[in-house]
Structure formats: structure tokens, C-alpha cells
């Protein structure tokens, strides 16, 4: 009877747990591995294992103080670039979205269709042209040319503003217009309606899009790679992959420590906003 019960349980639930646990192992193994390795007291990749014999913080210490590996400078650069570009992105995106959602004007439909068309082509596809463009701009105005953070931020700004305006506009459409009409009757200007009513009510989507844009820029490689050539200006993605690559196996401990520091805040941020992020990404496509 007990065996029968177990077989029944297995058929109903047990195999599900088996599949579930298999993928728990697959998901966690590399993450745990890099985490323990970042504290492990061994020299290189060759001697690494999941649970090291002794623990140390020397790999973390090795990330500070070496002028050839300005790791925390990379980290700072990345947060700066992603923060500024992300903020301006949703700011300008919200402005544009407001016009498309609330104002009636000629060319509104054309503008919206253009947004949808443009967002199909990620901006990095034309990276050759962006490189050549900023190569030439750099001759004229070194402040915004290749090798500068300002130039890179401007490119990131263009890259996701279409996508963000479109999604914010979609959200604003769900805010009842009766609110602004009432405000209008009371003599509110467009900007007041935007500032006092529509923008605050759109905050959920704005926050989520900021997080998505931030993480996207944080993880970008190709545009940062064509822009930044000076090791002090690298983003963390570039720095880890260019500087540590020369001696991959022997730098393993430092790579692990650098990875943990770079990944943890982003992973926490992502998990915190996970519902909204996946909700935002799949909005409108899942229907009953």
C-alpha cells in the first residue's frame, strides 16, 4: 500500500520535483562556484573547486590599489553612464509619451508608427556608422567624440528612447482622461497636467523602464567597446573582459571577485523588480 502510494505521489508530483531539482542544480552551480571561488585561497583556475579548502578575502583586496586594474573606477564609470543615460532616457521618453498620449496634432499617427518601426532596429546594429560618425565628431569637438563618456551617453540615449516612449505612452493611455479634463476646467496648463497628474500616475512604468534601461546599459558591450579605449574610462564589462583576459587562468580568483561585485547589485535590482520587468516586457502579448 505504501509503495502504491509512493508511485502515485511520484506520478503526480515526484517527477516534477526531479525536473525542478535538476534545473535548480544547473542554475545554481555556476553561480555558487564563482561565489565560493571569489573567497577561495588558491592561485588559479586549475586548482579551483566548488568548496575550497581555505577561505580568504585576498581576491577582493587585489581589486583595490593596482593602478593598472582600476576596478572600482570602472564600476563608478558604469554606474555614472547607466545612471545618467537611464534617467535622461525616461525623462525625455515621458515627455514624448505625454504628447502622443494626450495631445492631438497632425502627424501623431505617423510619429507613432515611426517609433514602432525604429524600435525594431537596435541602435547598435549601425555601430560602424556610429563609430565613424563620432570618429569625425571627435576631430571637431573632442569633448563629445570617441573615447568620451558624453558621446557614449548620447548614443545610449538615442538607443532606447523610442522603446521607452512607446511603452510609457501605452501606460498613459490607461490613465482616465477625465482627470486632466477636470484639471483643465480648473485652468491647469498642459505642463501642470503633466507634472501634477499624468507623470505621477505613470510612475510605476517609469521606474520599471528606468531599471530596464539601466540594466541594459550596464550590460552593454559593443557600444562601450567601440567608444572607450582608455583603461581609466572603461565600463566594468569592458574592463573585466579586456584587462583580465590576458591571463585568464591565473587571474581566476580576481575575476571571480570582480564578477561577484559587478553582478550582485544588478541581480538584486532585477529580482526586486522581476514581476514588473517581465510584465513590462510581455505586456500586450499574452492574452487569454
Amino acid at each position, binding site marked *: 500500500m505504501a509503495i502504491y502510494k509512493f508511485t502515485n505521489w511520484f506520478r503526480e508530483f515526484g517527477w516534477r520535483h526531479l525536473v525542478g531539482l535538476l534545473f535548480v542544480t544547473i542554475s545554481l552551480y555556476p553561480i555558487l562556484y564563482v561565489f565560493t571561488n571569489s573567497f577561495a585561497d588558491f592561485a588559479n583556475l586549475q586548482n579551483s573547486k566548488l568548496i575550497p579548502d581555505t577561505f580568504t578575502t585576498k581576491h577582493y583586496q587585489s581589486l583595490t590599489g593596482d593602478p593598472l586594474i582600476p576596478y572600482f573606477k570602472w564600476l563608478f564609470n558604469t554606474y555614472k553612464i547607466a545612471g545618467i543615460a537611464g534617467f535622461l532616457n525616461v525623462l525625455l521618453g515621458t515627455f514624448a509619451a505625454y*504628447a502622443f498620449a494626450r495631445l492631438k496634432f497632425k502627424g501623431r499617427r505617423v510619429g507613432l508608427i515611426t517609433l514602432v518601426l525604429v524600435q*525594431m532596429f537596435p541602435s547598435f546594429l549601425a555601430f560602424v556608422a556610429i*563609430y565613424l*560618425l563620432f570618429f569625425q565628431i571627435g576631430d571637431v569637438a573632442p569633448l563629445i567624440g570617441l573615447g568620451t563618456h558624453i558621446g557614449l551617453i548620447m548614443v545610449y540615449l538615442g538607443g532606447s528612447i523610442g522603446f521607452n516612449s512607446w511603452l510609457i505612452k501605452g501606460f498613459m493611455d490607461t490613465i482616465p482622461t477625465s482627470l486632466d479634463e477636470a484639471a483643465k476646467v480648473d485652468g491647469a496648463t498642459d505642463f501642470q497636467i503633466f507634472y501634477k497628474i499624468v507623470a505621477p500616475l505613470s510612475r510605476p512604468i517609469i521606474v520599471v523602464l528606468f531599471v530596464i534601461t539601466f540594466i541594459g546599459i550596464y550590460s552593454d558591450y559593443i557600444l562601450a567597446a567601440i567608444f572607450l579605449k582608455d583603461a581609466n574610462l572603461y565600463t566594468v564589462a569592458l574592463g573585466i573582459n579586456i584587462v583580465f583576459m590576458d591571463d585568464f587562468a591565473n587571474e*581566476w580568483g580576481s575575476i571571480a571577485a570582480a564578477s561577484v561585485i559587478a553582478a550582485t547589485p544588478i541581480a538584486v535590482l532585477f529580482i526586486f523588480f522581476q514581476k514588473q520587468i517581465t510584465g513590462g516586457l510581455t505586456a500586450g*502579448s499574452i492574452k487569454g
Partner: protein
Amino acid sequence: MQYSTIFRYLFLGIFNGFVVYLVPLTIAFESWFLLIITTIITLLVNFTYATNRLKPLKWITPGMIFLLSFVVFPAAYSFYVSFTNWSTGHILTKQQAIERLEDLTYTKDDQRGIEFDLYVLQDQNLEYYFLADLDNENLLFGKAVEENEFNEINFANHEPSFKNPNGEILIPDNLYLLSGKEQIANSSQLQELSLLVDKNTRIQLYNISVFGASSGRLLSAQQKYSYSAETDTLYDNVNDLACTLGNRGNFICNGQTIDPGWRINVGTENYQRIVDDERFRGPLRIVTLWTFQFAFFAVFLTFFVGLLLSVSLNKDNLKFQKIYRSIYILPYAIPGFISILVFKGLFNPDFGLVNDWFSPLYELLNIEPINWFRTKESSRAAVLLVNTWLGFPYMFLITTGALQSIPKELLEAAKVDGATSRQSFWKITFPLLLVAISPLLIGAFAYNFNNFTLIFLLTSGGPPIVGADVAVGYTDILISFTYDLAIAGGRGYQFGLAASVTTIIFLIVLLISAISFRYSKRLERVYGNL
């Protein structure tokens, strides 16, 4: 004052400040195209915000500027570049190339290799002077100067008074003649000094002698090429001959192409090369095919794993569901460039963990451990395995969402009608799921089609395709191939060619998007009435 007014003037102020910085520079660098663009944008912005007539534009303009400048314009510019020969040796504009050529110098033959006595002198202030005994008409004396003092004031003079009638050198009392040993002691400083003869010629200390006088040498810098704007030709001053204008954006002197050249319009040449040149076409075909295969299998594998998981875990009263879900998010939550880096370590053939796991299998089959990134097949497999790890959580999330939104009544009705659970899955659940997420699957296809980060960081495109005309490997996808051509510079920077490959990418992405629109419309029609 209202916020809107503050905002408006703040924005206008920053913007116009930027323009004030940019405009003089564009004029100084004669960059007329940039000037025109800047002027148009400036007029548009100021007109929009100074008047009240274009209300919607006030909201849209800031974002639109960036969208047009850095997304739309580069796409068009890329198309333009694909019709040029912009590449190593043809980087500059014609004007820049001519300037560069006119800066080149050479030493005349009759001034080359001549040595003469050179005396090093010092005055009370320890300043150096050179006295060069070229011949009787040229006993040159003057201050020895470093490069930053090369100007006419310091030109040397012929001073016959420094020599007596017997031909011996006379040194005035206020100057001190350095001995050979003293010259050696100060040689590093002396090397930097020159005695200027005229605009193009100077004298430097060449060989220090301890016993007799040291020797000097003439260094002359004659202009190597002169350009004539009227005839649009270059004159080679070295060989005294006129150069002709080549048709590839070069001058040709004496049958030889002169570097640097400049970029010119070459029409469809880059596209012809894609079609005709076997040494380029072959690798491109491999890359294009693999790009499609990679994108397809990337979506298929992640979707398969994601669906397997969501179907397994989508069961009422199943324990630990929440824990499973929160763990499966992790691979998706970690920035890709980190995970890829870690997997690069795990796939390391000598000490990587993946081979440790597989070692029982290797022993069982009695084969050598796989050197993952060495062969075409294994590196492609590695790329797909890593991508599956990175991407299955997304598929798990969206398939779970879709499964939960399928009405329970449908499945119950099927059960009542006697359908097995397998039948109801394939006939009801799966088709409905596909309708719901097919736009996302196509989106995932498009994403992986251009998944540069994965390929570039994991394999850098390797292993290389042997015999290709360009630097390219078996795991390269179109976008990383473009990067190899244009930026990596393994075989020079081939911007024109890279831009033509970019055009192909654009066309394919356009095609994918068109299919996406149509396909999701059609599926909605088919299943929409359910």
C-alpha cells in the same frame, strides 16, 4: 515663475551653450556637414521653444533629436558608407590626405651623408652654441636650439672671423669650447639640439670624437610632395615627376600608389564583392547560415527547456513552487557579460569544470576530453549550451504566464469529452500557448540573431576559418563578423565592406519584423475565436 518656464529656459540654455561650443569648432575644422546639421537642429529647437505655435513638438523634440541623430541617421549613414572604399589607407577625406602628403619631408641626396667638423661651445650662461665648418663659404655659427625654438631668430650665420688665415679655428674669449669628454658627459642633452641653417635644413651633432673635432651632419626636410589645386595633381619633388590621379582615391607616382589615399564612392563594389569574391563570399555564407542556425537553436533550446520546466511546475498543490521560481530567475538576473565570462572558465579544456563533469563519460566512451573552443562543432555546441543557461529563465517566465492564462474550463471540457492529458496538451494547451508567445519567440529570434555579447565574449568568433580573406571564425554571427571587419582590425579596418554587411543585417531584421507582424495577426485569426 512656473516650473515649465524654468524648465524651458534651462533646456534652451544648456542646448544653446552646447551649440556655442560646437559651431566655432565646425567652422575651424571646415566640417560643413556637421555645421548644417547643427544649424538645422538649433533653429528647430529655438523656434519650438521660443514660440507657442508648435505645442506637441515641445514635448517630443528633445527625445526626437537623439533618436534621429543616433539611431536613424547612423542607419542611413551606414548605407552611405557601404558605397565607399572607407578602409585602412582610405580613412581620410581627399583634403586631409593632401594635407598629410604635403607635410611629408625628405632629405635631398646631395645633403645626405655629408659630415663636417662641428664644435660645441658654451657661453657664461651655459647656453650651447654650435660652430659648423662646412666649407670656406659656410662657417656657420649660431645658438643650438631645441625643437620648440625652431624659428628664424635662431638661424645660423656665416662667421669667417672664427677662423684664422691658416685655417685654424679661433674661439672668442667669451665662449668655451667643450672637449670630447665633456661632450660625452652631456651627450643626451646635446642630441636634442640643432643648429638651424634655413627653414628646411638644420645641423645636428653626429659623432663625438675625444681626440679631434666632433662631426656634424646636415638634416634637411624638403617638402616631399606639392599639390596643385588648379590641375588637381601631385608633384613628386624627390624624383622630379608629376603624379597622376588614380581612380581608387590615390595619387599614383611612377606607377606606385601613394599612401595615404582618401575615401571615394565606389558604387556597388562592396556588394559585388559579397556576391562575386569567392574568398569573401565563402566565409560570409558560413557566417550567415550559422547566424540563422544559432538564432533558431537558441530560441528552440531555451523554449524547450523553459516549457519543460513550466509544464512540470505548473501543477496545483505542488510544494516549493515559489522557491523553484525564484532560483530559476537567477541566471536571467545576472548581467550576461559576467555569466559568459564564468562559463568561459568552466569550459576551459584543461581545468574547466565542464570537462570534470563529463570525465566519466569520456572514460566510458574511451575518448579524449573535448577541447571546447578548438573545433567548429564543439565551440558551436558550447555557444548554444551557454545561451540555453542564459535564456531558459525568460522562456520559463513567459510560458508560465501563458499557461496560467489558459482558461481552465477548456481543459476540463476536453477531459469530459474523454481526451487524454497528452491530447489536451498538444491540441489545446500548446497551440494556445504558441499564439500567446509567438511574438515573443520571434523577438527572441531577432535578439539572438544579433547576440554580439555572447559570441564575442565567449569565443570571439573562433575557431578561425582557414583560407578566408578576412579575419572570421566558425562561431561568428553576422554582427560579430561586422565587428571583426570594421573595428577589430585584424586585417585592417574595412569600414565600407563592414557597412555593406550591416545592410544585409538590416534587411534580415526588417524581414523578421515583417514576418512577426503577419504571423501574429494570422494566428490570432485562427485561434482568436476560442
